Structures are given as structure tokens and as C-alpha cells.
């Protein structure tokens, strides 16, 4: 079928699977560099702090998936992150220690350490104290209490800033990386026991200091440091002597991370390499072990600013904005999802919302929103070719967010007349009016009091209601009127979950609302009775996208581990198709994909078609066709194209994958049945990054 608005008189061409696609490349999304990474071994979560002050929580269980995002703030720069149990602390150049509330996705409290900018924070292995390193040269100890932290004392103050800290596993000593030296402090007395002098790089100017960017303190009283002269040094902290000097790079060694069993250490450099060291004896089975440089990984183009070593993989991030999980292949016996290299380049949530009726796109940037009207083209076109554009797309609005806080979430109503966004502390709703080519925007002033902020926003299909996900997994329902807005109801999950909601979806007929939260729970509410309808059985992996079918009222759920389910809301059970998928299993090529499904929509012309997309492909899932079996070719579009019509039918399977458009930020279906795809070229992102350190390449 042709998915164009009006068909020319009498010429109804019925070709299956022909789509008119608005290919949009004017969303200048720019991710922010990674500044710090902290890995929580108990919960298997990775906290990532970016240069713009935002913090993201990833889980590594069943694929790398971004579970939570805490938006950044102007002036907030995070220098280090630290987990204590399930609590997450950060410090930054503002001189404050922030604990984050991971349930409400906002800072829980902020304490000024009164020592100038803070470079580093670490908790002692016992989890009772935090040590922070300040610009004024003090190491400050804070006691961790139930719901706050309390300043305890300073260790002896020395001249020179403290850039890195590491506790001895016993918790009695601290190594501090400073300018030109490392000091080892006795925690009890607060006195410095040792002063380890770090020399500058050969040929460096005399006044140039050597910065000890990172230190680690091992249980066998070894201190390992990484510094700006490009060296990884191994020290004996008992005698204060240098044992071994590894010349790693001509530039800086920025980050170090030690494995839990203290046999492996990784160092991140300015060249974008990650160098692994291992504690080995040169002869098998002998005791005299030493730190040996073993492997070099190059997955980054820019500074590797942050590193963490899990048991089976190395997590690294840096100024090139991507988070890389590099598996250590010797720890994996079989090729599996866990042994694949994973990269998180784009956020795993939508930054684009689409007004289907009004053909508008709303782009969410950290501190402003852009509203665009899509262009128009000729009605007819031959497959594989471009259609002449009659009207070019137009930027209708650029809305700057009020205040310092970055935008958390935003939405535009399907009719295009309402626009809403929320930061961590304020929610703003706007009414848009179009007159000819003019657009006027008015802020809705009187909002119900419950609408102070939202984790996720969504309009009903007829644009009469706004749904805002709030704390404790609750959803506020607000009716929209030009005269004013009225709070109708608040939906709360029966089990009293405190986790934030990251996905909201309303059925086309306005009868059902589904929510998904970070505990992998999916709740379904009835909008007619205003009651909780049912809960989908909890699956182990997080929900990455979901939507309710407009006619069948089935909830289609895509999970981060690439499984898909279809849940009948009316029958409160999985549909037969979903059971069939689970029985037969998905194709290996589908399961091996790297990025989660980011959006689910439906083809209004064919109720069997479900449109899914991840970063590298979009896929029309045809439920009427058989599932691909293990041996069949999964990416078969090119093969099918070359086959005659009759043969195609025998080779068809349910997954029609299109990789023409990459990398994708959003795929959605407009009311006139055309598709809109939003691409963001990775090359453009790289081009906007600062230049990497210069490296000598062969023959240049």
C-alpha cells in the first residue's frame, strides 16, 4: 500500500510495504563527554557522569542498558563519583558534595566542603567514611550517616591540590595524588607517613608540574600512580620507593582502575588507549610476581577520562562521549552476548517527540527545545528514489529552558497545540496557536499543584489529556483546556514501587495507560474506571520501548535484552503470537544486535505491522508472516528484492529490516501514514568534538 495522504484520482497502487519517508537530519544532538565512571559490584550498575553535569545509570545485566538519567545543570561539573552501597555521591569543581536520589532522579542533598573545588571522592572499603580531595590541599573525611554525611576532620594540610585519593583496603591509610608527588596519610593520626616524589616527563619545562591524576592503593602496600608525564609507576608504600616505572604514553595517564582481586589494572590515556597491566610471575607457578604490561585496547579517539574494571570486562569512557564495555576475552569461554564489545553512543530514551497530526517534531536539547514543521513533497514517487520537496521544513520555535537546570523530558501533543517540558524542579506547559504562518506561544500559568515536575510526559491521542509520571511510580492525569487545566486523577501502582517511571504510553482510543519503571515493572491502568487494571509479569530485563496497539489493544513490549512480548490488555495475558515467539525463539541475528529497541509504533494501514527501531535499523514486524527459523537468512531484504514476486512469498519472514537510515534517533509514523526518521550522523558528532591529541602516524 502506498502510505501517502491522498491518492491520485483512480490510481490506487497497492504495493505492499511501500513507504514515504521524511528523512530528517537537522537534529543537532550533541552528547556530552564522560568525566567519571563508578561501578557498583553488588548491584551491577554503572554510574556515568558527563561533562554537562548529568549522571546516567547503566545496568550491565542482559546487555548494556541506560536505566536512569539525572539531568545536568549549568555550573555543575562532576569530577568524581562514588558508590557507597546503593548510595551515589559526587563531587565537583563547585566545591560541593552531592548525594543523588536515584528514586526521584535528583540531588538528595548538597554539602559544601569548604575547601575550594573538589577533585576526587572515595569511600573507605568499610563504607563508613568518605574522603574528598580539595583544591586547597586538604583531604577531608566525612562520616556516612543514615540519611546524610557529616564532616569529621581534615588530614594534615599540605600545599598543593589533591587530585586523586585511594584508601588502603584496611581503611587505615590513604594515598593522595598531588602535584609532583604522592602522599600517604595515616588516617588515625592524620599525619603524612610518606612523600613519594614523581618526576616530570623528560624534556618537560622546569616550571611544568607533573600531575598525579590517579592513584590506587593495594592491600600488599603497593601504590600505583598514573601521571601527566605518561607513566604508570609502582611504588612500595612501606619504604616509599619506586619499584617499577612503565612508560605508557607521551601524553597523560588520566585514569586507573584495579580489578577486585588486585591482579589486573587498567590505565586510560590521552591517546584514547586503555592499557592493561597484570600482576604476574614471569615463570608459571612461582611467587615473585610483578606488574607487567599486557594489552592495549583502543576504542576511543579522545582522552579516556574514566575507567572501571568489572570481573569480565573493562568499562571506559572519555571525551569522545561513548561508553565502551570491552570484554576480557580470556574470561569468556563461549561467544555470547556478554563477550561482545558494547558501545553506548546515543541515549536509550527518546529525545524527539512527534506530533502525528500536525506533522511537527520536537527536539529536546539540554537547555532548549526546538519545534520543527516537516516539509511536504510530491504525492507519488518510485521506490528507492527521492521525491521532489515542495515545501522545506521550517523551524517554528526555539524555546530556552528557564533557570539553570537542564530539561528532563518534553512532549508535544499530537495536534501540535500543546507543548510541555519538565526539569528536575519545574514543569512548564505551553499553548501554541498557529495563524497563517505566525505562531504564538502562551505559557499556561495555573497548573495543578501536583504538576511540579515529571520523569516522563505524554499526551493522549486526542490531545485532551496530559499524563505526567511523578515520584514513587505514580502518574498524574491532567485534562487540558484552553481555559485551564485540571488534575483529574493520580494513578499509583498497587505494590507501592518507589522506582521512577521511564516509559509512558496511552492507547489510541484513550482507554488504557501503561507505565514501565526501572524495576522492570509494567503497570496497566484503565482510564475509564481510573483504576489499576493489571500488571504484566515482571521480566528480568528492563523495558526499552512499548506501545499499545490502536485496534487490538495489545501492549507490545521490547526489552533491553532484545526480547519482545505482546500482552493482551483485555485478556490480561500474553497473546498467542507472543507465546509463539517465546516457543520458537528469536533469530540469533536479532538477539545479537547491539542497541535496544527505542520506539514501537504501528502501521495504521496494516494492523499486523509493528514498526520497531534501534540505532542501526528499523524493522517492520509483520505478525501475519512466519517467524524466521534459525537457518533462514535474517537480513533478507536484498535477496527478496532480487527474487521474482512468486518466490518472495516463500522466502518472506516476519522481520523486514531496513538499514538504509543510520544512526537513528527516532522513527515514527505520521497520520498520513508516511514515516519520519531522524538521523544523527556520528561523523558530525566527531567533527564537533575538540581535536584529539596529536599522534604520530606512520609516514606522516
Amino acid at each position, binding site marked *: 500500500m502506498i502510505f501517502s495522504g491522498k491518492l491520485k484520482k483512480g490510481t490506487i497502487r497497492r504495493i505492499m510495504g511501500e513507504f514515504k519517508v521524511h*528523512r530528517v537530519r537537522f537534529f543537532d544532538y550533541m552528547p556530552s563527554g564522560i568525566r567519571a565512571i563508578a561501578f557498583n559490584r553488588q548491584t551491577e550498575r554503572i554510574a556515568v557522569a558527563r561533562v554537562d553535569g548529568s549522571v546516567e545509570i547503566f545496568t550491565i545485566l542482559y546487555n548494556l542498558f541506560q536505566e536512569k538519567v539525572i539531568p545536568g545543570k549549568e555550573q555543575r561539573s562532576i569530577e568524581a563519583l562514588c558508590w557507597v552501597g546503593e548510595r551515589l555521591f559526587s563531587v565537583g569543581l563547585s566545591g560541593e558534595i552531592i548525594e543523588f536520589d536515584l528514586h526521584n532522579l535528583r540531588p538528595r542533598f548538597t554539602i559544601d566542603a569548604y575547601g575550594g573545588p573538589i577533585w576526587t571522592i572515595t569511600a573507605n572499603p568499610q563504607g563508613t567514611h568518605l574522603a574528598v580531595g580539595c583544591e586547597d590541599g586538604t583531604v577531608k573525611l566525612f562520616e556516612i550517616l543514615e540519611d546524610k554525611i557529616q564532616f569529621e576532620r581534615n588530614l594534615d594540610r599540605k600545599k598543593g591540590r589533591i587530585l586523586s585519593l585511594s584508601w588502603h583496603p584496611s581503611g587505615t591509610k590513604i594515598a593522595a595524588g598531588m602535584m609532583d608527588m604522592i602522599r600517604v596519610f595515616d588516617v588515625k593520626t592524620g599525619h603524612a607517613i610518606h612523600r613519594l616524589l614523581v618526576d616530570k616527563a623528560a624534556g618537560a619545562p622546569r616550571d611544568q608540574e607533573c600531575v598525579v591524576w590517579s592513584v590506587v592503593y593495594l592491600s600488599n602496600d603497593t601504590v600505583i600512580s598514573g601521571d601527566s608525564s605518561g607513566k604508570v609507576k609502582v611504588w612500595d608504600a612501606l619504604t616509599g620507593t619506586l619499584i617499577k616505572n612503565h612508560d605508557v604514553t607521551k601524553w597523560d595517564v588520566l585514569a586507573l582502575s584495579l580489578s577486585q582481586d588486585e591482579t589486573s589494572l587498567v590505565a586510560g590515556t590521552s591517546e584514547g588507549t586503555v592499557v592493561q597491566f597484570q600482576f604476574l610471575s614471569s615463570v608459571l607457578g612461582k611467587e615473585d610476581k610483578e606488574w607487567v604490561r599486557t594489552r592495549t585496547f583502543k576504542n576511543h579517539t579522545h582522552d579516556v577520562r574514566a575507567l572501571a574494571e568489572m570481573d569480565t570486562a573493562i568499562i571506559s569512557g572519555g571525551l569522545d562521549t561513548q561508553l565502551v564495555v570491552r570484554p576480557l576475552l580470556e574470561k569468556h569461554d563461549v561467544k555470547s552476548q556478554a563477550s561482545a564489545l558494547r558501545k553506548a553512543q546515543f541515549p536509550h530514551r527518546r529525545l524527539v517527540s512527534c506530533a502525528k497530526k500536525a506533522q511537527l517534531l520536537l527536539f529536546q536539547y539540554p537547555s532548549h527545545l526546538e519545534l520543527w514543521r516537516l516539509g511536504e513533497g510530491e504525492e507519488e514517487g518510485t*521506490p528507492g528514489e527521492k*521525491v521532489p520537496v515542495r515545501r522545506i521544513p521550517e523551524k517554528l520555535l526555539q524555546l530556552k529552558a528557564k533557570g539553570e537546570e537542564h530539561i528532563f523530558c518534553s512532549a508535544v501533543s499530537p495536534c501540535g497545540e500543546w507543548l510541555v517540558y519538565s526539569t528536575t524542579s519545574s514543569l512548564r506547559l505551553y499553548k501554541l496557536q498557529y495563524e497563517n504562518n505566525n505562531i504564538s506561544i502562551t505559557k499556561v500559568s495555573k497548573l495543578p499543584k501536583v504538576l511540579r515536575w515529571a520523569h516522563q510526559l505524554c499526551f493522549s491521542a486526542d490531545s485532551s489529556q496530559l499524563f505526567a509520571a511523578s515520584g514513587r511510580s505514580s502518574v498524574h492525569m491532567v485534562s487540558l483546556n484552553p481555559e485551564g487545566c485540571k488534575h483529574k486523577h493520580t494513578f499509583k501502582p498497587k505494590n507501592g514501587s518507589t522506582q521512577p517511571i521511564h516509559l509512558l504510553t496511552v492507547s489510541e482510543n484513550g482507554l488504557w495507560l501503561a507505565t514501565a519503571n526501572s524495576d522492570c515493572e509494567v503497570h496497566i491502568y484503565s482510564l475509564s474506571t481510573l483504576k489499576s487494571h493489571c500488571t504484566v509479569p515482571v521480566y528480568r530485563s528492563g523495558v526499552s520501548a512499548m506501545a499499545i496497539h490502536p485496534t487490538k489493544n495489545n501492549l507490545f513490549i521490547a526489552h533491553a535484552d532484545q526480547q519482545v512480548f505482546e500482552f493482551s490488555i483485555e485478556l490480561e495475558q500474553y497473546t498467542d503470537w507472543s507465546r509463539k515467539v517465546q516457543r520458537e525463539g528469536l533469530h540469533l541475528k536479532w538477539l545479537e544486535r547491539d542497541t535496544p529497541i527505542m520506539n514501537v509504533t504501528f502501521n495504521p494501514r496494516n494492523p499486523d505491522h509493528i514498526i520497531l527501531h534501534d540505532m542501526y535499523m528499523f524493522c517492520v514486524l509483520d505478525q501475519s508472516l512466519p517467524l524466521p527459523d534459525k537457518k533462514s537468512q535474517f537480513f533478507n531484504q536484498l535477496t527478496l528484492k532480487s527474487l521474482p514476486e512468486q518466490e518472495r512469498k516463500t522466502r518472506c519472514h516476519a522481520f523486514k529490516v531496513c538499514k538504509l537510515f543510520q544512526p537513528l534517533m527516532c522513527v515514527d509514523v505520521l497520520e498520513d501514514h*508516511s514515516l519520519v526518521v531522524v538521523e544523527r550522523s556520528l561523523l558530525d558528532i566527531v567533527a564537533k568534538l575538540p581535536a584529539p591529541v596529536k599522534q604520530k602516524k606512520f609516514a606522516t
Partner: protein
Amino acid sequence: MAALFEGSTLCALSVAQNCTESGIEGIELKGDDDHVVVTDSTRSITVYKVSDQKPLGSWTVKQGQRITCPAVYNSKTREYVVVTDDKVIRVWKDDDISLDKAFKATVSSDVWRVHSAPDQEPVVLFRRGAVQLLDSLLAEPQQDVENILSEEEVIRWSTLVTSGKQQWILYITEHKGEHCLHVQSLGNMSRVAYRLEGTGSTSLSYSVSPRSGNLHILSLYPDGCVYESIVPMRLPEGVEGKVLPLPRTLLLMLPLGEGELASASAVPLDSAHVAVVGVPHPSAGAGKDYLCIWNTNFQTLQAGKEMAGRIYGQLWCYCGKLYVPHGKALSVIPFECQKSSLAAAMGKLKQPGGCELNPPVPVASWGAVTQEQTSASAVETRKNRLTRKSQGASAIAVDQLIELIKTGSEDQVHKAMTSFLSKSDLPGLQLAVGNLASALVTRSLEEPSFYPHKVLVQLVHTKCLCHSVCPDLLKLALEKKDSALCQFCLQVFPDIPEAITCACLKAFLSTPDSELETVTLETDSVAYMEGLSAVTVQEKEENETQQNGFSTPAAAEENSSEAQHPLHQKPKLASSMSLDMTRPVGLHKAVLLNEILQTPYSDSFLLPHLKDLSAPQVILFLQYLQFLYVKYYQEINTQVPALRSPTMTQIIDWVCMLVDAHFTVLVMAPEAKELLAGLHSFVKAQMRLFTGLGKIEGSLHALKKAKPSKDNSQYSIEVIELF
């Protein structure tokens, strides 16, 4: 890493001059690791304390008696056991002075060996394959002994292996060129026979080590290959009387200088190291008198030691010491093998320990598969046998041919070679051809009158030869002034060293043309050169008639010797530097020089050798290169078809190198002045042409670049179709 330490001499050998036998029958441990029993084939048995290098006792058999098996020590009863004259078993103790007075028993059948392991009863292996414990045999010496092997089957080697409480006797028999491994478990006396795979040649040495549930059998072949076969310790059941195929895997390929190994031996030291004696050190010439330790995981040489004097291909390894008879001494060399942790760090080594019982024999081989099939179908068997026979025949043919080459006349060799080459299309041809070529060259070098030109050409034409296989071939051809063979070699060999290339060049340049014209060269290249010369003539005619009013007069009028405009260059050059150059060398010489131009080289290696050319040679060669260059430029649109012709780049590279190497000579030589000036003006003109082309390329590139930028627009509407 492994290391060989300073050794010591245990005893002197009484060896006659040029004797290939060391005179040592065997070395066995005596109880602890510091005492050994050395059995001398000249009738004596001596016990040494190794750390003191001191004999502790010695026994000699009477004149006329022969020791037929190395003496062993039974640590249980503190007795020595030896067999004399095949049938007489003698047992004595340390305090017995004379062997004659010791206990002796005559058995009914010939004994091959007596084997003993510490704290175990010695075991007797008879020549016909029967195995018996010594004490049960001595209880009734004249008992009948079962014959397991047939009359013709001969035991070549045997050993006793102990692992835990289990013991096995392994022996290898030869029967009609086929080698079989027999494994006999001493626990339940079950016996399994395996046919060794691919034994066209006889192995020089065997050794066995028990490891993780399997017996690893190591064999060294005269071609320098060390193979490993694996037999499970738990012998397969229900295979009595059958001969199972035993696949082998290539563990190590030892570098051999020339020829095959005659006396060498390999012993496994641990799972990753093998000690080899009698094989050349890869970086120390062709001498074979080295003791080396190789790492089989990484195929690396770990340690090497030169052993003075002749190597007898004998090697024993007990308790961290290697016992090597060489020259006139038996040396004891302590060694150490450390397991490198590299493999462990790289995750390539599974955790050591905890892998005591591996699933037996994981190795399968194609040979094994076909062997299994043979037992399945009789027709297959016959076919298989046929192919094996034919393979055997050709293998023999190579040896015969080499023998023939050593003595036969040129005609005989030629005939034999033709028949051999026409028959054989087997994969081993490469090896065979290499051996044959070496043999031919060796003979030719030794015997100046013998020079089988045709045979050598035949061999080169198989394209199985390369320079490194037979480095003396090209030298020989040069010596014999065999330009035709040189040409073929230059065409076929991919790896001619730069020194040899230069020697060829020098030879070609210095040979007078008249001498070369008589040689029959490869026709294609000759035709090519003729074609090139013909083009000149044709071009000349064209030059006179062409140019429908196009710029000739203008160019002729210009009196500068340089071309002003690239497009007018051709006629211009004709006037400036006699484009109708005659070939400065004869036809055949030109053909040979072309081959030189096309050989691969590396300029940093070539340059020093190029300096050896004399000034007239340089000038002649440069003239020829200039001739080619100009010709190429002229016939750019009338290319002469040829399979092999030097490319423009090759010519220019050679010009550059030649000028580089002989810059001072060329500057000083008056006769080179004109040549260089001509070359310079021609190159200069070309440069202008290319700058012009460069400009055009630039603008075309910009045009090309300008187009796709449109494709990168911010917005488009496309129609796609999914099937």
C-alpha cells in the same frame, strides 16, 4: 624459558675413527637420580655417580659374549639385569665381582630388551613381541614364549612407561615398510596395535611421555619434522587383533640446512619443550652438532649448545639432565625448563592442574578417516592400497633419481627426469623438485664437465623451485654463462637476493652481444623486444607523415632545447635528443636486461651491490634504460602485447637507483654528460606534462567532490519499499 647449563663429561667413549655408532648401548637410572648404569657395546657395564663423574663399579662379559640389551637396575631387589647373546639373562648385585659367577638363566626365545622402572619388577620384551615379568620368567626360564609378531616383523624401538601404578610397554615394529606401534598394558596384559600414519621414511627416534590420561608419542623424521601421536592410557577394548590407525600431528618443523638428518634424536622435556640433538642451529650454519631445546607451543628455539665432535643421534633424559654421547665423550648437561606465564596471561592456557583425565585422543585426521573407511568397504581398500602403492613408488623414484643424478650421465638424468616429471602431480612435488635441483647443482659444482642444462630448465619450468630452495642454481648458471637458464630463473624465482640480481646484471652487461645472440631465449620476451624496435621504425614514418598541420613547424622553429608546451612535446623531443635512438645493446641482451628490471628487489639492499658496476657498464645500462623510457613514451598508444614487460615505474626506479649509486662517476665521466643532459631534458618535459595533468586532476576532483554534497542535505523525502 629453558636453559642448558654447563655440562660435564661422564666418561670417555672408545670410538673408532669414522664410526657412526657411539658404542653406548644404553643408559639407565640406578635407583636414585644420581647414579646411572651405562652399558657399553664393547662388553662392559659401568655404574657412575653423576655428580662426581666417577665410576663406582664395572663389569665385563667374557670374550666372545655379546651384550644384546642395556643393563637395567632393579631397585626392589638391588640387582642388575643384563642379557647376553640374546638368550642368557644375567642377574647380579653390587658386591658381585665377576659376571661369570652371577646368576644366569637361559630362556627359550630371543630377548629384545629388559625394561625396568623404579620400585617395579623388571619386564622382559621378547623379539617376537611377548612381554613377561622378569621374576615369573626366571621362575621357569625354559617356558614356552608366545609369538605375537610374525617372523618378518622387527622391533625397532621399545620403552616402558609408568604413570601412577600403571605400566605400559610400548614398542614399534617395522614390517614391509609399515610401522606399527604396539601398546601393552602390564596391568591386564591387554595389547593394542596402531598403524603409524604416513611413514614413508623411517623415524630417527621415538620417545613417549605420559600426560593427562594419554601417552604422547614423539617421533623425529629425517626431514626435520617432529610429530606427535596420542594414545589413550585406557586402551580401547574389543580391538584384539585389529590394527587401529594412529593419526599424528606436526608438532615442530626443525630447520634443516641441506640434506636430511642422518643421526638425530628428540626427547620431550615437558608439555611444551623438546630437546633435540643432531639438528643444525638455525643461526649457526649447517653444522649438525648441536643440542637444542625447542618450545613446541611457540615454535621457538629456547636454548642451544654446540657439542664438540660427532653426534651419534643418541639422547637420554633423566631427572633434569640430558645425556649426550658426542665425539669421544659422554656429556651430562643439566637443563631447566620454566613454564612461561605468557600463555596463562593471555588466557591461552587453561588452569594448570585439575585436568588429570582429559578425554582420550581428541585428534582426528583425514588419514584416520580414510583408514576407517577402508575397513568398511573392500573395494575402497583395494583402491586405497593402489594409491598408497603409487605414492610409495614415486617416493622411491625421487630417491632413485637422486642416486642416478649422483652418478648417471646427462642423457640418463634427462630421460629419468622427464618421465618423473610427467608422472608426478602429487603435492610433494615441490619438495622433490627442490631435492633434485640441489642434487644436480651439487654434482655440477663438483664435476665441471657435468652440466645438465635441459634438466635444470625443466626443473625451473615446474615453477616449484625458488631461489632459497636451491641457492646455488643461479650462481651455477652464471658461472656456466647459461643466459637462458638465468632468464628462466629470473622469471620464476620470487626471492632472488639483490646481490645475485646485481651479479646477473653485471654478467649480462659485460657479455659481448655477439655471444648472446646465439643463445635461445624465451620467445615471448624476444618477440616483445623486436616489436618494440619495430614500433620505432613505424613511429618514425608516422612522425614524418602525421600532424595534419598540428604545431610541427612551430616547434621546429623554436630554438630552445626544451619543450615549451607539453602538448608539443613529442615532435620537440624528436628534434632535441634523437628520438629515433637505436637500441644501445643487442636484442638478446636487451631481453635479459628486461628480466633484471622485473625482478623484485628492495632498493636499500640493491644499492650497495649496484656500486660494483664499472663506469662503462653503468653508462651502457643507463643508455638502455633511457632508450626504453623514450620508447615507452613514444609507444604509449601503440602498446606491444607481451606477457612480461618492464613497467614504466620499474624503468624509472632503476634509473633513479643507478644515478643514485653512481652519481660521482657519472658527474666525472665525460661520455656520460650528453646522456645525462638528454635524460634531464626529457624528464623535465615530462614533468611539465604531469604538472599539467595534475592541474586537470585537481579540477576534476573538485567537480566530483562538489556533486555528492547535495546528497547530504538536511532533509529529504524518499520512497522506500520493504518486501
